[in-house]
């Protein structure tokens, strides 16, 4: 069994630089902004759609690759 808390401990132990972002308002598959995805998440109790969280994650992702891949 793995969890984000457990992941964080392991990443810390790895010695590699890491960032672990947690998004309080959203659940699994929160990046899926399709109507179906949003409806299904609600139905399954995975939280509501939060476009702000999605946009933030995209910007972080691109910033990360911009930094790491150049």
């Amino acid at each position: 069994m793995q969890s984000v808390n457990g992941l964080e401990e392991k990443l810390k132990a790895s010695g590699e630089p890491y960032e672990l972002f947690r998004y309080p308002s959203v659940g699994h598959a929160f990046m899926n902004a399709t109507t179906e995805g949003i409806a299904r998440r609600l139905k399954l109790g995975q939280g509501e759609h939060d476009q702000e969280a999605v946009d933030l994650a995209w910007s972080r992702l691109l910033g990360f690759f911009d930094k790491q891949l150049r």
Partner: protein
Amino acid sequence: MAFALIKLQQIRFRARACNLLGVFHFQTAAVIAAQKMSTSSAPIATAEGAVAITWKRADGSDVPGYAFGNGGCRTTRKLHLDISVMSLLLAVGNPAIIVLQEWCGGKLPDALLCAEQFTDPTNAGGGSTRTCCNMQKNWRVTAFAHLSQISTEVRSTMAHSHIQLALTVHLGCAGTLGLEAEEAHHLMSNLDWPGAVEDIRGAARYLKSSEASAKVGVTGFCMGGALSLSAAVLVDEVDAAAPFYGIPQGVDLTGVKKPIQGHYGDKDTNAGFSDPAVRRHLRLIGTVSCRLMYCAPCRASTGLKKS
């Protein structure tokens, strides 16, 4: 310095335009869909603009596939970008990202309905579905599903991206033709994890050798997120990994060798896979919800120890 910044902005703008045009032309954000079907080694599609490619796994076996977006991107670049910009693009190291996503049928959480949708070429269920069907009517359900979902999250990735090349790897589903719901489910449950990891390695090698990418990043969603993390441990050719809501089992994550950026939702209830903490009592609920959401259990442990 100011000049350099302006140039960089131009590069970003043009690369983004390039990506968007690629998406527009081919109606898919998929760049490479590698396949490793047991019954046929023939490429999966003959879509216009696709470039047939092959890469080798570590064990020497070939992985045939098609490059879509990068072919289109290259053409677009030739048409619209002048040589000076092109050389600048190359000068910044041609960074590339590999984007991974397993099945997340976007329509109905039911394998049979997904199978019908993906195998009926007259079903206009969605642009991506139609595109896939036009490409190859009898393609494996699982493979269709990968591309179907890729067209949402990965398309967004590309639309947001100034990175000029994105790859999508068909997360290797070893097995036979999976048109029946049961079989599709079986294929997903038994995703060839070591094979998928090798496919990531192959894709990264391909990018570095054929596309002159100095660095290759990998990101992915759900099972693709778990695979991204696996790649950060097992695939030396990958330079950075950004997993979304997925954590693999069966691989020692203290052995991560690359920079990581993880994204996880606190309300994630997929216990033991992407939830904030282990919640023993929610284990069953987590598994069920994941299964409903993806038409397959998000098991991320199968076989990884072998590699």
